[in-house]
């Protein structure tokens, strides 16, 4: 371990806040809990009884991760306007989810589904399709958890703490209280995380520009940097070749976001349909924070921040922590760093719970122990959540961090391939399970090939150079690029539809459908959907 000029005040503030959320994490087991955490609805979905406020903090804490807060400004720092795609991405996602998520909530409550793969099992009567959905979800989630570690690591680097041991401690603590408290731990900690993040961002976007001569000077500095580089794709505005790439990346990422198992977990934990709808209207508040944070990338340019170089490679993820370190007094920088680090714990906990639920419901119960009791299910999930987090730590320790970023890139593309089964499945039984399976495989293969076939001239990588695929590869005479995941999704849809039509023509029978049309619009309190205890809605007092 090496301490290079660690600031004592900064470190103390950081450790106090970190210690506080650790205590909260353990206490969460007793928060709003009527029963023991001995079944999966309690441990893995917080009793399926979160009201609007808690859901807002939980899903917000889930989607806007530490990595987002570190990587989006880093992207603007590196390439400019293209990095701002995160804003339209998090604008368009909610109107779309507004329509789809209540249907998933209803059918899941009616039938006791815990994971998206549970729904597929019931809807299409196909074990293999459900297994593929579950494995895709786990594969896409794992690198996402590892990325949260990279977010913490960036903060620690900026504080001057090097080495891997602090991350092992942080994740050990996280694993312990997630094991004990389940989804209630991140739900409770999310309140602290978001309060700190809002505080830091508001202070940062008001205070830092006054120190740098206002937004005029900040954007002028960014413009000067980008006009000095040979790359045609960077700049304060989008180049012509980047326009389609920008909008397809925003749209495709929005389609993918709520297919991730951890997003589904947040949605299913809500109390009723209106809770979800209200949240889709209220969650964009986080997008304002994200948009303001993104501009920190340009402020870092104007402030002359240079990323920390580790092993000869500059780490752009360190620019936001470095900017805070540079601009703020030590105690406030400590708060800002704690906000980012705690911001990594919340999504990491939810993601590991979601991955563990997939394992338990769709692999353990389906193939290993068909007669598992609710208590056995909960125990299996708790143990799996430990394995998932240990796996993420091992990935970070043993592999190049760049590898998890590549995996995350792949993760977005592959999770998108579950869209036809899950989203279209919520509306129609037109598709045959085999058609969906073939489409999934084709989309996956096409996506992987295109990612492999994408070089990145800026970093000198030959493969997995980014999520943009050049249309010139299809013989078009243009520099325009398109989001790889969206092309793969089109392949997927084409194959699913074609094969389904062929199977229908051949009169191949469909698997049994356990759901009925009304299941998709059923609300809490209706027959078959557990009536939930009346507690004062809306008031923040529900956090009691």
């Amino acid at each position, binding site marked *: 371990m090496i301490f290079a000029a660690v600031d004592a005040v900064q470190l103390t503030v950081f450790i106090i806040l970190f210690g506080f959320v650790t205590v909260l994490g353990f206490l969460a087991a007793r928060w709003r809990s009527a029963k023991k955490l001995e079944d999966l609805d309690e441990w893995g979905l917080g009793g399926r009884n979160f009201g609007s406020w808690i859901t807002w903090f939980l899903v917000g804490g889930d989607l806007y991760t530490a990595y987002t807060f570190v990587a989006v400004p880093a992207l603007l720092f590196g390439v400019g306007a293209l990095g701002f795609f995160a804003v339209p991405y998090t604008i*368009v996602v909610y109107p779309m989810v*507004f329509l789809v998520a209540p249907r998933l909530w209803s059918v899941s409550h009616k039938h006791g589904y815990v994971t998206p793969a549970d729904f597929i099992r019931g809807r299409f009567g196909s074990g293999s399709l459900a297994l593929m959905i579950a494995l895709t979800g786990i594969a896409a989630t794992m690198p996402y958890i590892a990325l949260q570690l990279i977010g913490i690591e960036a903060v620690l680097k900026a504080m001057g703490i090097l080495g891997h041991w602090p991350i092992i401690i942080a994740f050990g603590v996280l694993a312990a209280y997630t094991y004990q408290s389940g989804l209630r731990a991140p739900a409770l900690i999310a309140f602290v995380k978001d309060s700190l993040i809002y505080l830091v961002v508001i202070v940062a976007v008001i205070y830092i520009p006054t120190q740098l001569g206002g937004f005029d000077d*900040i954007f002028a500095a960014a413009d000067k940097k980008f006009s000095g580089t040979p790359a045609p794709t960077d700049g304060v*505005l989008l180049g012509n070749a980047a326009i389609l790439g920008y*909008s397809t990346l925003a749209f495709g990422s929005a389609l993918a976001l709520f297919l991730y198992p951890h997003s589904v977990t947040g949605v299913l934990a809500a109390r009723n349909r209106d809770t979800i709808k209200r949240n889709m209207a209220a969650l964009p508040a986080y997008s304002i924070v994200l948009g303001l944070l993104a501009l920190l990338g340009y402020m870092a340019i104007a402030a002359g921040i240079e990323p920390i170089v580790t092993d000869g490679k500059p780490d752009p993820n360190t620019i936001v922590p470095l900017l805070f370190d540079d601009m703020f007094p030590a105690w406030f920088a400590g708060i800002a760093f704690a906000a980012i680090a705690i911001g990594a714990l919340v999504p990491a906990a939810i993601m590991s719970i979601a991955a563990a639920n997939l394992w338990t419901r769709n692999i353990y119960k389906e193939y290993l122990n068909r007669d598992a009791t609710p208590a056995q299910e909960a125990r299996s999930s708790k143990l799996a959540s430990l394995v998932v987090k240990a796996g993420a730590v091992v990935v970070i320790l043993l592999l190049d961090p760049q590898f998890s970023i590549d995996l995350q890139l792949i993760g977005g593309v592959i999770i998108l391939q579950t869209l036809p089964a899950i989203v279209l499945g919520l509306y129609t039984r037109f598709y045959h399970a085999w058609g969906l399976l073939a489409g999934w495989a084709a989309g996956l293969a096409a996506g992987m090939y295109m990612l492999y076939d994408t070089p990145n001239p800026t970093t000198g990588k030959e493969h997995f150079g980014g999520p943009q695929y050049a249309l010139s590869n299809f013989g078009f005479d243009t520099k325009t690029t398109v989001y790889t995941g969206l092309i793969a999704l089109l392949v997927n849809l084409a194959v699913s539809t074609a094969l389904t039509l062929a199977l229908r023509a051949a009169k191949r029978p469909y698997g049994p459908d356990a759901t009925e049309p009304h299941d998709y619009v059923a*609300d809490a309190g209706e027959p078959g959907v557990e009536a939930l205890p009346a507690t004062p809605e809306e008031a923040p007092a529900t956090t009691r």
Partner: protein
Amino acid sequence: MSHQRFVRDRGGPPGPRERRWTWLLLVPLLGTLIPPIYNTQDPELIGVPFFYWYQMIWIPASVLITVIVYRATRSGRR
């Protein structure tokens, strides 16, 4: 248009009239996913190019639209 139009019987799925409102949800997509609309430097707002503040304005705008659709289609239960 009066507020009464939003009020419906308790429970049950939205009817065709309510479902019409959901088309409004397309508006934020059209507003933000066509970059040629906003890929310009001017007009600036407190030194921020149009590209950035235009997209930021769509955040409250999409909230407003989602709230309108929510109020028009909610199940009526309180």
